[in-house]
């Protein structure tokens, strides 16, 4: 059997489940309530505690890894999918800016003092690495960036994996705030993560994605709440899902958008 090649730029998937974490909104449930009522969750922690890691690793894990693993595990649990079974697409604009700051600051003063752990945590696929190790997952994992189009490009890659034959795929978008001299080039703040388990034939809202010229949707409640985070361009989709809205357009490149039609049963 050969893979079919249909010349169309339309991609489809079912959204089986959603994981979410933002400051003050430590779960998808909290995000949905915020969209419905405007209320933030009481006593939300400043950083997630990713249960996939051993207890001693949770506290010292980089913020980027903590938020990515937290939303990824929540999405898998909600979909009833074993993390070890899923290929994964991790997308992040900048990776972990506090680690970038550490690397550059140390290199400028005492290069031979670089911490080996910080160095291997500085790779863009650090979260993907911790995820596959923690989950015992030997499936393919990728880590990408496309600046403000990072989530849309991650979604395209995840949906292309479904088109190529994968039954289900985990998509994780996340970014951290900025720190130190990096604030002069990346003026961003807060911690944000969103994860989707996407499948070809599963349950959940049906997603049809098309690339086109145009502008992204205006921010909704979640988009305004987490506007300072570089992964905020993913939020039109999460706002639409929380509100049951039928469409959203995500920034997909210079003057390009990924138009999403969402069908609810």
């Amino acid at each position, binding site marked *: 059997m050969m893979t079919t090649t249909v010349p169309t730029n339309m991609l489809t998937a079912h959204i089986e489940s959603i994981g979410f974490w933002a400051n003050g909104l430590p779960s998808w449930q909290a995000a949905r309530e915020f969209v419905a009522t405007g209320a933030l969750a009481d006593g939300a922690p400043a950083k997630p505690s990713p249960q996939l890691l051993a207890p001693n690793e949770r506290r010292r894990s980089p913020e980027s890894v903590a938020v990515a693993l937290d939303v990824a595990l929540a999405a898998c649990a909600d979909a009833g999918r074993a993390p070890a079974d899923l290929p994964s697409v991790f997308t992040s604009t900048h990776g972990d800016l506090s680690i970038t700051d550490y690397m550059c600051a140390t290199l400028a003063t005492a290069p*031979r003092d670089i911490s080996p752990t910080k160095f291997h945590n500085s790779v863009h696929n650090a979260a993907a690495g911790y995820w596959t190790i923690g989950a015992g997952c*030997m499936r393919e994992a990728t880590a990408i960036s496309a600046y403000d189009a990072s989530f849309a490009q991650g979604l395209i890659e995840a949906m292309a994996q479904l088109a190529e034959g994968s039954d289900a795929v985990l998509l994780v978008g996340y970014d951290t705030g900025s720190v130190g001299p990096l604030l*002069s080039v990346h003026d961003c703040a807060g911690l944000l993560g969103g994860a989707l388990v996407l499948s070809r034939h599963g349950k959940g809202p049906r997603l049809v994605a098309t690339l086109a010229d145009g502008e992204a949707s205006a921010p909704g409640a979640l988009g305004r709440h987490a506007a300072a985070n570089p992964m905020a361009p993913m939020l039109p989709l999460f706002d639409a899902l929380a509100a049951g809205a039928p469409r959203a357009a995500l920034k997909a490149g210079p003057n390009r958008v990924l138009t999403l039609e969402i069908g609810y049963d």
Partner: protein
Amino acid sequence: MSFPPMTPLAIRAYTATTALGHGREAQAEALRTRRSGLRRNDFGEGATADARLETWIGRVEGIETLALPPELAAYDCRNNRLAWLALQQDGLPEAIAALRERHGAERVAVVIGTSTSSIGASEEAYTRLDDGAFPADLRRPLLHTPHSPGYFVQLTTGLRGPCVTVATACSSSAKVFAQAARLIHAGVVDAALVGGIDTLCGSVLFGFNALGLVSTRRCLPFDARRDGLNLGEAGGYALLERHDPARPGLTLRGYGESSDAHHMSAPHPEGLGARLAMQGALARAGLAPAEIGYLNLHGTATPANDTSEAIAVRGLFGEGAFGAGMPDDGLHASSTKGWTGHTLGAAGIVESVFALLALERGLLPGMLGSDEAGETQPDPACGPQIRFDNAERTIRYAMNNSFGFGGNNASLVFGRE
């Protein structure tokens, strides 16, 4: 996992620029004559130079004096200069223009791999901060983010399909072939410019040094006496398009990707993830291991990588048909890191170019990195497929392995139709 065979994709153009020189001919000449591009470490300025490591590096000539065209000057940095230099070789601009013409700019994707992007520019900014902020000339957000090379290539080529930077450490620019294949197969685009760029910078020199993985000598891939890698820099590209069976040429036949699920900076000791990636690539290519003529190994020359990869290769390609009486036309597997150094996020594209040269010209490189007396001492884990001498032989299929931190593995199969 097993996969159905994939529809092959045509490779319309390909190129690499490394310490061996600019473009494909320089690579082929150096591979044939066994001329290494490695030199004693002379990289860096300021604190980086004061703390300079004793090692060997694969440094690309001509980057320091290269001037980007005025319209790209705002994106000037070592990584983008190398991206631009590599893009000017082997007729790539004309081949890209032809694809853009044929399909429309929206129907051609840009998928670029890198490990550290242009972090060298961020490192430089930290050495001359202006009141705690980046100096004005470096206050350019798109230079200090992982997507820097993907964005720069998109800007340079005017392509408007999906544009993405893959950053899975040292497997990055092998995975670009897989992602581009999916985009074409799914109908999102009709063609793709794939590639990889990584430049020498303080982060990788001192980072790999902190992990104890940098050799003070020339690297010795698959030699029992190896003690680490040499870092290198490189850029390269390939153009992928739907394959027309009536038109002979080079093809991407298959890809395989996997995770080790083992350790952030050490490979699975038995090369389990490596083997899964190779099996995936063979399955998508619809080929048996015995049909592969050349395998470019990841072969970084770290003690851990080469042993685990040798075990994986021996396990997959077998023992029975080889052994003492191994035929000369059996699999020829080698690491070319002794020529270029480990070019990290560019290793996937550079070594895919070497695999394509093997297919196109029958030039099968062995390994460089013998000791001063010219002796090699193969690691006991090496099966008979792992070769130290060059060979010349016509082959039909070639494979390339690229493995990265986080246990991220990719393997590609190329063909000559």
